[in-house]
């Protein structure tokens, strides 16, 4: 009896085993095989790594490596210098202080002659040309006034 039940129901269970549709099988199989493309990408990466290694070996053989290794040092030196120096000093102009051209005029005070009225603006740095000796010869005297510069005629008459 038990064997008979095994045969009947067991056979029917085997025969009527649930079967997925072909579309469903294909969709699941497709999603499973998808990551294999990533494995292909890994192979490409490996090829790229091998090629890079070959290039490095070639550079090392021709001395390119030492040049390449010194490049970062020089760059770091430049960066260090740029950050160390003060900006004001870096922008200061390089001028010649004791040149023949500067010696010709010497270190003289500025004169206001011909530049306008002394009463205008900041006159602290200006010098009245009529005070003291500003040039060769004596300071002007009353005798040397050639015309009518006052209420009296100081001329010869």
């Amino acid at each position, binding site marked *: 009896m038990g064997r008979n*039940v095994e045969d009947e*129901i*067991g056979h029917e269970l085997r025969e*009527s085993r*649930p*079967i*997925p549709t072909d579309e469903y*099988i294909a969709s*699941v199989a497709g999603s499973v095989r998808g990551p294999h493309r990533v494995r292909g990408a890994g192979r490409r990466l490996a090829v790229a790594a091998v090629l890079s290694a070959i290039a490095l070996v070639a550079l090392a053989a021709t001395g390119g490596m030492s040049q390449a290794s010194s490049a970062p040092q020089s760059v770091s030196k430049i960066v260090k210098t740029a950050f160390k120096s003060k900006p004001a000093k870096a922008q200061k102009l390089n001028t010649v202080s004791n040149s023949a051209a500067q010696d010709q005029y010497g270190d003289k005070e500025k004169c206001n002659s011909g530049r306008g009225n002394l009463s205008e603006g900041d006159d602290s740095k200006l010098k009245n040309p009529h005070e003291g000796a500003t040039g060769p010869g004596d300071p002007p005297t009353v005798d040397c006034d050639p015309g009518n510069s006052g209420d009296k005629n100081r001329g010869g008459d």
Partner: protein
Amino acid sequence: MIKRRRDPLADVESLVRDVYAYVAYRVPNHADAEEITSAVFERAVRYRKRYDASKGSPIAWMIGIARTQIAEQQSRRPHGELELTEIVDRADLETRTVERISLHDAVRALDDRSRELIGLRYGIGLSTREIAQEMCLEENAVNVALHRARERLRAIMTTSASIETPGGLRRGSTV
């Protein structure tokens, strides 16, 4: 112990058929079976590098994943198991005619352990020895449990047939 490298999803079409059959015997409808089977393969793809051939066959590995997925689904839907009366009522809701339920509906009326045994034995086609290894049971215990499951199936189908035609032919009986 050295891990033996082998792609467990090499024969994917065959695995889809087996896993689907196993899952379909365990869950109430085909939509759930497809959903769970897809989740099983998604997880298998994610963990395929962890597969160790020395610990079992690819289908045994997949069954382990499927069990987890089914348990997760059942925890989300605690009323997944249908009673026989529900199945009959659902089938005849409109026509008011009681039809003889199918074998698959009868399987769904079994308890979870019996459905698991039916799924492994007749869905995937494992031998009783393989089932015993899978479920950590004695081979004899597997044979006894399968026999009881079949008896229960027969009883369910007999009840259904007697509802349809009192005194009529029983499903599966030889004419």
